[in-house]
């Protein structure tokens, strides 16, 4: 990196040499300080990669073992909401990148505007997640004592919507291929009752941890937006904007992998 640092004098007449007010005394130049921050942030993101990585390993092993259950359970997720959330999150990554760009170009107004838009899109994502979780609770698809793999069909049969797909009465696990006529299943509904809970446990853990990161990210943005509003950043010093941007993009990348892994296990018939 070439160290073309603008040594603007901000009234530090008593200092032994003039420097940017944001330059900490243990760094020689702004470029050196920035580089240290970038590497430090990436090292933190590496620990985050391995944090999520453990869950991805658990997902992979159970998916290989109980693929049929994962395929069936995955179809219970709404492709519409999942796809919408993917688009919203990619859009928020764009606004975040534009916020960093506005900071780089000394545009205080648009730094704040893009950051606010990023937060709003983050909140839209979390709102959609609430709708999806609420639907899972309403359909007894949350792992635990109240989990009921057949609630959906029993409910539909009781309402008389499509009796052809109802597994019939108590569904005591005798008939295979009871689930909505996708194809012949190796697992009975009672076996799916057990194995699909593994899928939904991973679903709630992975999306829940991701949502927690989103909430932290929005909180981070609030602080950064306030700092930007106060005019703490300029083209020579915008490291906090860039660092929170790295965090935000990382959370976006996690979702880029979660979406196909959770929503698209096997969508073809």
């Amino acid at each position: 990196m070439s160290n073309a640092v603008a040594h603007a004098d901000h009234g530090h007449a008593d200092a032994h040499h003039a420097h940017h007010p944001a330059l900490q005394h243990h760094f020689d130049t702004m470029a050196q300080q920035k580089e240290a921050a970038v590497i430090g942030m990436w090292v933190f993101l590496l620990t985050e990669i391995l944090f999520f990585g453990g869950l991805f390993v658990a997902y992979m092993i159970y998916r290989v073992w109980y693929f049929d259950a994962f395929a069936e359970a995955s179809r219970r997720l709404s492709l519409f909401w999942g796809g919408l959330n993917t688009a919203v999150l990619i859009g928020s990554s764009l606004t975040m990148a534009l916020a960093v760009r506005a900071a780089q170009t000394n545009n205080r107004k648009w730094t704040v505007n893009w950051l606010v838009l990023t937060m709003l899109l983050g909140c839209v994502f979390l709102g959609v997640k609430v709708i999806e979780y609420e639907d899972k609770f309403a359909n007894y698809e949350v792992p635990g004592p109240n989990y009921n793999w057949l609630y959906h069909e029993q409910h539909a049969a009781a309402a008389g919507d499509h009796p052809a797909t109802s597994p019939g009465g108590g569904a005591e696990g005798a008939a295979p291929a009871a689930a909505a006529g996708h194809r012949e299943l190796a697992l009975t509904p009672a076996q799916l009752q057990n194995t699909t809970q593994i899928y939904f446990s991973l679903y709630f853990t992975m999306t829940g941890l991701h949502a927690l990161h989103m909430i932290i990210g929005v909180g981070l943005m609030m602080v950064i937006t306030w700092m930007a509003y106060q005019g703490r950043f300029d083209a020579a010093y915008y490291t906090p904007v860039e660092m929170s941007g790295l965090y935000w993009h990382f959370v976006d990348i996690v979702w880029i992998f979660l979406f196909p892994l959770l929503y698209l296990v096997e969508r073809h018939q």
Partner: protein
Amino acid sequence: MSDHVSPVSLYLTIFFALMILTGVTVAAAFVNLGQFNFAVAMLVAGFKASLVVWFFMHVKYQSHLTKLTVATGLFFLAILLGMSLIDYVSRGDFKGYVPPPVNPDAQMPAR
């Protein structure tokens, strides 16, 4: 500062590429490719992640040391995923580890 300022058009291009690739991954999931459905989904996701890392996260314009740091993360993730899965698929009679059986007498819980 020596920081690279990317043009807005680049960010928009990456954004639209990510949106199109999202459509591609959804469309591909509805085509029966057998074992390759998973490979396609992961390849597309990996490519999307690379676009975000390279352009949105500005790794393209960072020092070699930063790039090496990023690569180290991917290396350790590969060890975590690869070694764990090698362990699981190579157990038992080396034809693949038999998963814990699903209880053949499973009953729906009484309600």
